[in-house]
């Protein structure tokens, strides 16, 4: 009896392990195929799709870089850095106000800020275009920056607030005894204590901004202003059937965020857990 169940257990475990490994292959193989196709020539690509590239030349990567990917990359980096910094600071300020200050109608304020979490960006799309055209901000760097900040404040405030609520109020009282004002207490005591959640917020915002498509597509049309997700579709449509160059471009866009994920996994997972779990 004991041997029968343990035999069954071994069979079941082997089956589960094979399934999990097979799934890992299904995830990794397409990504590997993408990277390798960036090294192939067009005729190799249309030959056996499973074949390895004959030689590892960086030609396609260089071509992709020179055909706009460098400029898309620079724009993506600039938008990502500025929007992330602005979002996290404005959100941390708001979170501090919401957890540490007595504000009239504070429940309404909280509901208004966090309520933004429920709203789909697509719903505001048409009026936003009209508004940005009227403001003269359509097809400018500012359009993307403002929209990314506005639509990311609710989630980021939600994350940071949940963390700040758990910090004991005695810390503030000690700071008050020291004679530090609210602003000083925020900058030199509370903010450093929130470091883990700030790092998580930064990473999640980088990931969002780097990959965002809808606003980037609608609000930019000039080549210098386009981010990688839009630039890649341009690369695809402009260069006909020179697909290896497109694969190279895709790889250039994907590698930074994959690296970011692996290097910062701990913070990343924590941010996700706090963001959805609380």
């Amino acid at each position: 009896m004991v041997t029968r169940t343990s035999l069954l257990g071994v069979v079941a475990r082997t089956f589960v392990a094979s399934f999990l490994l097979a799934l890992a292959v299904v995830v990794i193989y397409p990504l590997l195929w993408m990277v390798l196709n960036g090294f192939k020539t067009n005729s190799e690509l249309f030959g056996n799709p499973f074949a390895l590239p004959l030689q590892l030349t960086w030609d396609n990567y260089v071509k992709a870089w020179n055909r706009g990917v460098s400029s898309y990359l620079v724009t993506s980096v600039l938008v990502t850095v500025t929007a992330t910094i602005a979002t996290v600071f404005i959100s941390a300020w708001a979170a501090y106000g919401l957890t540490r200050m007595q504000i009239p109608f504070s429940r309404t304020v909280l509901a208004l800020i966090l309520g933004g979490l429920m709203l789909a960006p697509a719903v505001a799309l048409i009026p936003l275009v009209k508004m940005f055209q009227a403001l003269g901000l359509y097809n400018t760097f500012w359009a993307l920056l403002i929209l990314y900040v506005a639509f990311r404040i609710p989630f980021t405030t939600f994350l940071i607030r949940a963390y700040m609520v758990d910090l004991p109020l005695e810390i503030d009282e000690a700071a008050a005894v020291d004679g530090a004002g609210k602003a000083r207490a925020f900058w030199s005591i509370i903010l450093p204590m929130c470091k883990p959640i700030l790092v998580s917020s930064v990473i999640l915002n980088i990931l969002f901004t780097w990959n965002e498509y809808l606003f980037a597509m609608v609000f930019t049309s000039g080549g210098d202003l386009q981010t990688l997700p839009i630039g890649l579709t341009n690369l695809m449509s402009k260069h006909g059937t020179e697909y290896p160059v497109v694969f190279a471009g895709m790889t250039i866009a994907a590698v930074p965020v994959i690296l970011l994920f692996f290097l910062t996994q701990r913070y990343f997972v924590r941010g996700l857990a706090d963001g959805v779990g609380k």
Partner: protein
Amino acid sequence: MRRHRRTRGWAWVAPALLVLGVFVYLPLLQNLQYSVMKWDIYAGGSSFVGMANYEKLAGDPVFWRALLNNSAYAGVSLVCQVFGALLLAALVEGLRSERWRRALRAIYFVPSAISLTVAGLLFYFIYEPELGILNAALRGVGLDSLTQAWLGQEGTAIWAVIAMSQWQGFGYSTLLFAIAIQRIPQDLYDAASLDGVGPVRRFLQVTVPLTREMTGLMIIVTLSGAFQVFNEVMVMTSGGPNNSSQVLVSWLYRMGFGRNDFGYAAAIATVIFVLTLGVALLQLAITRKRRVEW
């Protein structure tokens, strides 16, 4: 003194409120107004047309097709990214080696880190009849009869897009479920094992009930996301062939920016607003019931 303090508190929340008010809430209200208007693109003016845009919507077969596609998206995603992911997370967390658990969680997540544009383009090529690996793999195992132009046919296009989305998103929810499972006290599993409860019943009697909160949350997130799908559809099919893979946001985009029919696009946006708000209010009602604090 007290009053002074109270007004000073506003300074902290003012930037967030201002940005949200102008760029999120104002356009949201304007959208409702736009949806009862019609733009004359030649003369440049707009006029009130009442419910005309909504009536047009009710009679537009592509709108209904899009709504159906979004619903199919929601249904498949619920099966794969909520229930499938919960089961998968339980299988991963049941492994003995901590190293393997971590490695698998991370590997499964990678597609969620890359953009939907990259994932969409990648699968565009995978589905491509000539150079794609899907047809090549089918031929390789002797299933030649199944090879087809996955994105080029009305019957398969939206399903091919939905399948790509599952590949891209299942690791995200699996990771979150894994975190929820890790929070379950080990004693509960140990007690169940001592009572002679097997792994399947342990999953049903311990894992499922104790991750219920996360499951509820993931259902909401998945549903809300399913009605906002846009990126992958635009990259892979642009809604074609013959509008068969159109979804609400891509149809909104086509009407608004392809045909400059802003009023009609705003009416589609209102439908998306109602659907996503409905889902969100459902979530609020559920969490309110469970917890009093907010």
